């Protein structure tokens, strides 16, 4: 909660996930572990992702990091990472896969391109942001709310044959451009991981090598990502251990992971991540294995580091208490889909999706006067078919007939204009009568792209 969100939302996001879809292909079935989700992370902001086990939280993180193992694969969507430093580094390394926006602007007019697209009857819905659903794209271009950058990002220039489909690095002198991480090769991924995006995992022991000292492992990261050697690297390692509040870092730097306590190991892993100087830190349940007192220390540390370095954090957890503590924005996932997205105060104060409501209700202590805990009936289903219905409907106390035949899309449910609160449920938009609301979802659902 360190940063007021309203300040950051005006600038373009650091990471923008659009329609990301990751599936696992087995002989028996195809599991759509992450099914067309979209969200943004801004600098200095913490975005929490919550959901039960099996909801796709970790696969989302691994997709962003390029760590999805076979038989899993990213099958659609894009993850745009707009860090200038990363874009420049990659553009230098892979000029053949780089698009320079300045060149395209010089040669083409966006309005003309749109007309061309319209004549081919291409689907332009991806261009229409919130609130522009029924506007004419050409008009939007004239107004300036759709730019050449949007056309490139949306893959329209690929369709027209202006840009190469394999090109995933977009350079833009005006706002820095972006890298679509999903297009990167393994070698390119290695350049993004660490210095661009770093990740810490639930169990620190899996990230630490037991046969090397902690200092050694931090120094390796320093050598690779900052190019420091010898004593310089050693001093930097000590400095980093001090930065993550490990007392007596001079001695600790020469100790092995087994000599560290659980909380201290997680601090060491955070120090390793910081050694890479990342822009975005993905934390996959970093405190789940720790005691509350140690958890409080780690959360405090993360918030401090974030403030110091203007770090963007994506925080995955199933603990609603932790989310309330650390997140600015919350994404609620259910069975591979993003069902609700809102600032943290709105999620807890006015949850809209019945799943979010159920999740909050089942926390012990919400209704101190009630003897029994409220529960959500049933279990999370495996997302193995294309959703033509609401995946939560079988467990939903508010389900009605249409829930079995119409797939809900994310609609705006903000109570406050700046809230940007969306929920994927046929009950919304609330101001429409039920049948109209259902029709709204049906129409928007049909328009969506699919793989």
């Amino acid at each position, binding site marked *: 909660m360190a940063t007021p969100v309203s300040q950051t939302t005006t600038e373009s996001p650091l990471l923008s996930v659009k329609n990301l879809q990751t599936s696992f292909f087995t002989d028996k079935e195809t599991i759509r572990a992450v099914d067309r989700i979209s969200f943004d992370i801004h600098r200095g902001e913490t975005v929490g992702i919550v959901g039960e086990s099996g909801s796709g939280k970790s696969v989302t993180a691994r997709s962003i990091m390029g760590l999805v193992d076979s038989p899993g694969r990213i099958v659609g969507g894009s993850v745009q990472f707009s860090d200038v430093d990363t874009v420049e580094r990659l553009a230098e390394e892979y000029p053949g896969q780089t698009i320079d926006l300045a060149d395209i602007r010089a040669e083409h007019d966006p309005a003309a391109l749109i007309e061309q697209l319209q004549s081919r009857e291409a689907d332009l819905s991806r261009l229409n942001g919130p609130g522009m659903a029924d506007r004419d794209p050409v008009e939007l271009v004239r107004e300036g709310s759709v730019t050449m950058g949007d056309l490139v990002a949306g893959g329209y220039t690929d369709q027209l044959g202006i840009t190469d489909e394999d090109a995933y690095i977009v350079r833009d002198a005006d706002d820095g451009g972006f890298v679509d991480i999903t297009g990167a090769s393994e070698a390119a991924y290695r350049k993004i991981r660490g210095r661009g995006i770093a990740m810490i995992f639930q169990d620190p022991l899996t990230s630490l090598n037991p046969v090397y000292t902690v200092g050694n492992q931090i120094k390796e990261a320093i050598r690779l990502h900052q190019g420091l050697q010898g004593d310089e690297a050693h001093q930097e390692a000590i400095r980093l251990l001090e930065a993550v509040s490990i007392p007596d870092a001079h001695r600790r730097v020469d100790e092995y992971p087994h000599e560290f306590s659980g909380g201290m190991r997680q601090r060491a892993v955070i120090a390793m991540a910081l050694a890479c100087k990342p822009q975005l830190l993905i934390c996959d349940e970093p405190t789940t294995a720790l005691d509350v007192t140690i958890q409080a220390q780690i959360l405090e540390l993360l918030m401090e580091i974030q403030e110091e370095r203007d770090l963007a954090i994506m925080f995955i957890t199933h603990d609603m208490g932790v989310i*309330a503590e650390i997140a600015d924005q919350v994404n609620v996932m259910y069975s591979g889909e993003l069902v609700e997205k809102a600032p943290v*105060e709105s999620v807890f104060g006015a949850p809209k999706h019945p799943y979010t409501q159920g999740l909050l209700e089942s926390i012990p202590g919400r209704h101190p006067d009630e003897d029994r805990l409220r529960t959500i009936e049933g279990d999370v289903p495996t997302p193995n078919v294309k959703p033509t219905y609401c995946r939560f409907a079988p467990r939903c106390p508010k389900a009605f007939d249409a829930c079995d035949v119409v797939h809900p899309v994310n609609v705006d449910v903000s109570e406050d204009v700046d809230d940007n609160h969306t929920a994927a449920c046929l009950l919304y938009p609330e101001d429409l009568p039920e049948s109209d609301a259902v029709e709204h979802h049906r129409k928007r659902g049909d328009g969506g792209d699919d793989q």
Partner: protein
Amino acid sequence: MSELLQEDDPATNENGPLVEVNGLKTYYDTGGLFGSNPVKAVDGVDFAIDRGETLGLVGESGSGKTTLGRTLVQLESATEGEVLFDGTDVTTLSGSDLKNWRREAQIVFQDPESSLNHRMTIGEIIREPLDVHDWPNFSVAVDDPEDRSVSVSGDGIRADPNESADITVELAGAGPSIAVRDALAMNADSVDVSVSEQSSSVSVSVSVAVSKAQLRRAHVRDLLETVGLREEHYYRYPHQFSGGQRQRVGIARSLALEPEFVVLDEPVSALDVSVQAKILNLLEDLQSEFGLTYLFIAHDLSVVRHICDRVAVMYLGHIMEIGETEELFQNPENPYTYSLLSAIPEPDPTADRERVTLRGTPPSPRDPPSGCPFSTRCPVKIRPEAFRDVDEHTWESVETLREILRERENREMGVRDHAKALLGLETGFEDFVDVAEEVFTRNGSLEAEGVATEGLDDSARIERALDDIDPVAREPLKETIELVLADKESRAHELLVETFESDCGEQSPEHHSVSDSGRTSYCHRHRSEFDDTAVAFDDLLSSAE
């Protein structure tokens, strides 16, 4: 609940607690060649659990809560002290007595993944305790109006008068009337009883037409239903179940022998919140259905608050505070309880409260601090008279320095370190000026405070770093650092302890009674000459602003 239980077995002593623990200690690694330094996992605890009650046991990992739970069901043997179960000291039981008693006290483990055998079906898993204990034993109670001596032969054995019998034979009237306990899936027709009566004795011969295997299978099916699973799950394997379902299997297994007392060792810690809610509801249902007594071990305090009647807070093998749940949560008296509660993240982003974050991790139970176990981390430790008014930064620096010296003293030296020490090569303290600088300055180093360190020698750097420290404490701290630099580290540690120690680190506190409901807290602060915990924390939080 306890009423129900008393109806069931009228012979037990109704009024006393079910479990009573006195001076219990469980140490690991005792004995051995050099074994003078055991791990003191449980280091002297006293408490009681009433019938039908749920006692919560909370604490950080390493506090000894699991060891305590395991000792209560005799999975670990106690080093000292007694565990009275229904008035019998179970730590002294052995052989068949112990085996018989084990029916009464069962345990549910944290991780359903590792506590279920992957090669057995669910049915086999739940049935195993029944096979081991040869359930049912067809205990026969003979209700004889003339009170003659009774002997039982055939399939049955004579029931222990303290337990409810499987088969009850009533001799009044014409011919014996037979009743079978509900838990057995057979009716009275399957039991054939022949009675021969003499004037002073009765001998009863029982034959049962149903096989024990049949009864066990039926019992397992009943249990599956009781815990919310289905009969057809009998033949499935653990991997075919979700985490919540597996935990249900673990619960069914623990209930198979109809225990009175169940230790629940973090039964919901590995589960999602929505699944957790279902298991907690189930546990409460089972408790009221069977009149169970629970010891609920957990580190999630909101779960404990929901399910427990009373809570015991453990730290380093000691019970720091024990009392009624709501009272303890609303008004914690022990500084450790206070800090622990303060660390729980609240699922409400608008909640704005002062938080106390504890420094460091609990000390090793092999080498606990002298005096109060919490004294090394206590945010409101009682300070010696002379330093009562120094600022927070000074006190924090002193505590950090003590912790560093303590840890360095206790660290395990490898062969290399020993060799180095012998050769006088390196003591590990040559960089201590840096450490002192980090500890004493407010910003972590002189550089960060804008002081040019170029050309400053060690003593000048220390002098400069001590500028941030309250003048009262400067002299002893400077002396300590000098001793460390002169390689007299244990003398340095001693000096620090002598100067800055209070009762907290010197004497063990007492279990002070802190409320009318029998709550006790293990802390020096309850002595009349000191401020209360709440007052001390208020002072601490207001000075931090």
